[in-house]
């Protein structure tokens, strides 16, 4: 089964090289889709292997797929597939000259993320996470406008400084392991209980490492790069960053938490993660109420969900299966929404919520999936985010963190109201009497020379096209709707992955 460990690394790199080498444009565009499919297939194979009770490894244990790694690899592949496949309709906005490097960078990004979750070495994982900063930097700055340059600069500076702090933490954890004879950075070795690790160094190292990866996960107060980067990047890239990059940063936090919990107990990081999580929920609530830009709205919603996951991580063992399910549900939903937001931006020509009105009447092909996905995002059942949030809240009350989850619940309600209001403003209602500039342009294009249509916007036939592949979006939404109800094998896998982190069996 060890071949499934190198496939998610090798296939994307080969496809990236092919995308760069040029050749058929059509083929190059399928490169990222192929990479995601390879990652997803290996993830599913490894899921099968860990459910059969084996732990595949490769390269003398440098790469290792326990239940948690296999699950995270599946998430990377699934979210990647939705973003890249759904993003195929996004062709026109990519400048032709840079299109090859765009596709190559997405493939390299997927390979780096796979390496980050498969590496059984904190240092190697660090290098992989930093490599994603490098690939996404050019993807964020891809449109080469003034704002995208600003977003990319802030992202690279904050991202690399954050990750550098994490490196300092990792260095201290490495120094703490000198007491074991042979210093090590292996997850497997470090998370064994009863090791003679220096508690002072572990405390400092764990705090710095969690702080650094929290910057990458977009937790407040280090979140300021996130809304800029997500709103300026091309839509499929925003989906990948939100669903994959933030999730992998959270994965790193969870692994480090296991190490510190074994040495200094859970209370230390519990305080840090609770404060970070609640602060993120607060920032998201405060800025969503008055949000005007629908891509920034999705970005702040990512901060909200990462905050809720951090609260879940703070609660500890009992909440971990819910947190892991959350990672999948949020990734798929957010990738769908970002892909749709890219299409809306493309056809409407504006990112402003005020300018996009009555979408349900004018463009049902886009509005219907958008509404379903927003319902999933704000936490309506049967979508899995609902069950994850309930799971975290119940586990929080059981663990005696009633105050924390109480505050979180209030902030979630505020965010629910804000997101519902913004979604209703975009989709429901009758078209404005005077056609907006975007509509007018569209009308002229559709009914060439038909002056009557131009004057009477009510007569414009509704646009039922989905402006891109429809299947990946419905697969993603369908998966989030049913995944919470599948006890076997999903429930078993989640329980085993949580057990890797010292959670419930």
């Amino acid at each position, binding site marked *: 089964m060890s071949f499934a460990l190198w496939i998610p690394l090798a296939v994307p790199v080969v496809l990236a090289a092919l995308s760069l080498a040029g050749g058929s444009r059509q083929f190059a565009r399928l490169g990222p889709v192929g990479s995601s499919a390879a990652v997803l297939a290996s993830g599913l194979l490894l899921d099968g292997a860990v459910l059969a009770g084996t732990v595949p490894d490769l390269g003398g244990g440098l790469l290792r797929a326990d239940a948690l790694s296999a699950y995270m690899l599946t998430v990377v592949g699934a979210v990647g597939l939705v973003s890249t496949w759904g993003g195929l309709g996004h062709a026109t906005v990519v400048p032709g000259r840079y299109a090859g490097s765009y596709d190559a960078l997405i493939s390299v990004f997927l390979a780096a993320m796979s390496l980050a979750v498969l590496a059984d070495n904190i240092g190697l994982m660090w290098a992989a996470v930093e490599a994603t*900063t490098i690939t996404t930097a050019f993807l964020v700055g891809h449109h080469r406008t003034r704002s995208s*340059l600003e977003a990319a600069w802030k992202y*690279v500076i904050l991202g690399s*400084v954050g990750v*550098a702090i994490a490196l300092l933490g990792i260095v201290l954890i*490495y120094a703490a392991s000198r007491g074991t004879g042979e210093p090590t950075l292996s997850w497997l070795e470090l998370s064994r209980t009863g090791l003679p690790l220096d508690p002072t160094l572990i405390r400092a190292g764990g705090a710095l490492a969690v702080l650094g990866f929290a910057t990458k996960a977009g937790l407040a107060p280090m979140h300021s790069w996130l809304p800029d980067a997500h709103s300026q990047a091309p839509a499929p890239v925003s989906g990948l960053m939100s669903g994959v990059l933030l999730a992998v940063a959270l994965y790193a936090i969870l692994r480090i938490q296991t190490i510190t919990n074994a040495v200094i107990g859970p209370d230390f990081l519990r305080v840090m993660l609770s404060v970070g999580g609640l602060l993120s929920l607060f920032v998201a609530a405060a800025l969503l109420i008055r949000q005007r830009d629908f891509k920034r709205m999705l970005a702040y919603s990512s901060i909200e969900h990462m905050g809720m996951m951090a609260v879940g991580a703070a609660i500890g063992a009992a909440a971990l299966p819910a947190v892991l399910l959350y990672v999948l549900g949020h990734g798929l939903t957010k990738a769908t929404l970002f892909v749709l937001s890219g299409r809306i931006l493309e056809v409407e020509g504006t990112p402003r919520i005020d300018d996009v009105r009555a979408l349900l009447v004018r463009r049902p092909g886009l509005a219907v999936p958008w509404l379903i996905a927003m319902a999933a995002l704000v936490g309506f059942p049967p979508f899995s985010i609902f069950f994850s949030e309930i799971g975290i809240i119940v586990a929080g009350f059981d663990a005696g963190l009633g105050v924390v989850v109480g505050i979180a619940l209030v902030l979630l309600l505020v965010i629910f109201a804000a997101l519902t209001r913004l979604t209703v403003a975009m989709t429901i209602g009758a078209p404005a009497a005077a056609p907006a500039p975007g509509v007018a342009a569209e009308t002229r294009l559709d009914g060439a020379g038909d002056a009557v249509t131009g004057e009477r916007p009510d007569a414009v036939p509704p646009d039922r096209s989905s402006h891109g592949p429809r299947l990946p979006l419905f697969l993603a939404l369908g998966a989030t709707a049913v995944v919470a109800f599948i006890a076997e094998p999903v429930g078993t896998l989640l329980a085993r992955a949580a057990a890797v982190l010292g959670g419930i069996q």
Partner: protein
Amino acid sequence: MFDTVYPQLIGLCTGALLLTSALMVWRHSLLASIRLLSAQGFALAALVAVIGVEEGAAEVIIVSVLVLLVKGMGLPWVLAHETRATTRTDEAPRLNPTAGLLTVALLTILSYVVASRLLRDDSSVSAHAAGIGLAMVLIGFLLLVTRRQAGSQLIGFLVLDNGIATVAFLTSGGVPLFLELGISLDVLLVVVILYVFAGRMRNKFGNTDIDQLRKLHD
């Protein structure tokens, strides 16, 4: 013989590291800062070599050559190349030199306090010097938040990274070689990316002043 000079050599190298960092806060000229950064790279390589000879580890000597090539020569060369292209190489920082040096002194005291608490069980010579590494990390932060030019921010980032490397070498003799390679490659690529972005910034805005990056907000 080597055992008697070893503590002095460690002291000399770390002293040079701290001195170059403090001078970078003091000097406002970008080119002078780049020369100091190069000197810092050499001091770091010397420190790694001293630790390598003391431990008798060939791997650490290879790392010291790598550090010399990347931090002493490669990165300063890239930066100097970028800086010569800019019209303005002087910096108008938010902090005047006196206040800057005073802050450096405070940060150094703070990091010694923190380091002595962190490593109180460790009585080796190198562990006593680990405070310098933390001080460099904090000075790097200081440069990042007080400088306005893209190039100076880059230098702040590199001082921060040198500080982390110093902590790593002083506390545990450095991370394994393959990781050192990965980390160096990542830092190099980040600098190249920021260099490319600084070039685009100059094309679009005519200069590389970070203060004009204020368009995106809520």
